[in-house]
């Protein structure tokens, strides 16, 4: 490396060479890593001579990171150009009519819960529209059609309370009755239909309520009352011909061959199985007779033989069989009667068009603008 000369001369030569190659020491190229040992020697010498060759000048931290930041920023700007500009987005204007009609369309398609959401959107964005009462009412109808009767009644009751003296209020009351009718709670349904008849004079609504009231009474086997109710329907109503026919036919319900549940129960109590036989269920009656007979015989024998504990247990079980036999006979009579009634009603025409009770008049409204 350095040969010959005195120590000051060597130092001068060293200093010169170092100053010539100082750029390599400050910014060594990776390909020159093989010179690491030489750099190490330089480092030791540099330190010894206090030349501070390897001491890099202090840099501002911001500038130290600058190159990376300078790359990221243009990249972000470039990406932002790729994104769709709000100015270029398609613009859709939905007015209240469109929104309401879309909700109706969903309802007609049978998507009742979607329709509920759409009607609620309508109420949210067009709170002053004239169709708000109608939308509230239709939410209740949608719940009812989705068989969510509890929610339906809550919404309809709210609508009725809010608009009691309007057609919508009357229709809401009608549909509360309809919800009970569909759940086969006919006495409740009767109450609501009767209330509509009493408080609303709108012909279509009143006649519809009368028609449904009569049907509810037929389901409750109040045949004469049902016939009278059918007769109250106006001659101008579309329901009049059907009502006249039903007024006549409903009276035949009186003549259906019903089984008296009390008679069935008493007969079963007198002789297990006899109540079933009364309801024309002979096999069930025989089963009831045999099971009760065996348990009674076993109980008697147990007591007779002095097995009081066994006798008590058998008697306990027999009590269940005996009570069950009576219940079963009464139940059979009720089911028999229900079946007879349903078969009879199935053959009667139901001409009530409930669709008429859901549609309403058209109106203009405010506009909702949504940018997509």
């Amino acid at each position, binding site marked *: 490396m350095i040969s010959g000369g005195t120590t000051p001369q060597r130092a001068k030569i060293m200093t010169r060479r170092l100053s010539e190659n100082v750029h390599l020491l400050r910014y060594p190229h990776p390909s020159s890593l093989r010179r690491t040992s030489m750099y190490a020697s330089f480092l030791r010498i540099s330190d010894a001579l206090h030349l501070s060759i390897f001491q890099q000048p202090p840099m501002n931290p911001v500038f130290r990171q600058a190159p990376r930041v300078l790359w990221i920023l243009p990249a972000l700007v470039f990406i932002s150009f790729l994104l769709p500009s709000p100015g270029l987005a398609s613009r859709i204007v939905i007015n209240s009519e469109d929104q309401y009609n879309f909700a109706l369309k969903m309802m007609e398609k049978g998507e009742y819960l979607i329709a509920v959401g759409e009607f609620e959107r309508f109420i949210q964005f067009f709170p002053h529209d004239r169709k708000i009462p109608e939308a509230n009412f239709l939410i209740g109808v949608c719940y009812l059609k989705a068989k969510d009767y*509890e929610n339906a*009644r*809550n919404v309809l*009751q709210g609508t009725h309370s809010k608009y009691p003296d309007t057609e919508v209020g009357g229709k809401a009351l009608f549909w*509360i009755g309809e919800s009970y009718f569909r759940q086969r*709670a006919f006495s*409740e349904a009767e109450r609501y239909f009767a209330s509509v008849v009493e408080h609303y004079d709108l012909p279509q609504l009143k006649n519809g309520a009368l028609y449904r009231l009569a049907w509810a009474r037929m389901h409750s086997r109040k045949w004469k009352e049902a016939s009278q109710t059918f007769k109250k329907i106006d001659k101008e109503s579309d329901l009049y011909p059907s009502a006249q026919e039903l007024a006549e036919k409903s009276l035949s319900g009186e003549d259906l061959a019903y089984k008296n*549940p009390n008679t069935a129960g008493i007969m079963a109590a007198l002789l297990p199985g006899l109540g*079933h036989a009364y309801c024309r*269920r*002979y*096999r*069930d009656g025989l*089963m*009831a007779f045999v*099971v009760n007979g065996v348990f009674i015989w076993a*109980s*008697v024998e147990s*007591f*007779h033989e002095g097995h*009081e504990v066994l*006798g*008590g247990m058998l*008697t*306990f079980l027999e*009590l*269940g*069989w005996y*009570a*069950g*036999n009576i*219940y*079963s006979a009464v*139940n*059979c009579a*009720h*089911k*028999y009667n*229900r*079946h007879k009634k349903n078969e009879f009603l199935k053959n009667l025409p139901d001409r009530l068009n409930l669709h008429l009770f859901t549609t309403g008049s058209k109106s203009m409204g405010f506009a909702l603008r949504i940018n997509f």
Partner: protein
Amino acid sequence: MKPIIRLFLLNALAFCLVLAVLSPVSASADGLRANSPSSSKTREAAFNPGVWLLKLYRNTISSVDSDRCPSFPSCSQYSLDAFRKHGFFTGWVMTVDRLLHEGKEETSVSPMVYSGGRWKIYDPVENNDFWWYHPPKSKDHD
């Protein structure tokens, strides 16, 4: 004392015992049929010997026995539903009723449903208590 009198007295005693022991269970179940939303949960939590016996049957006998019940739901499920809905005494009576009427004659008054690969008689608890049990209204709409 003559055997017949003794039998009568013991029967009367057993009947009174049944009423005394089971009435609170049944009554509490009836009381729980109120409007509170947690009523079914509370009824479930109350000890019901019928439910306990049914679970014992289903876990031991029914699990190794094949499904031969011609009705849907099965008799054990029906019984469980009846005990849960109406308490011990009524549930017991309704279970006996189901065992007596589950035959072919029921098809004349109840619909059929396809379940478990065959047609069965659709006969849930609601089909046998409709003439006396009316679910409480959760809210008065008057």
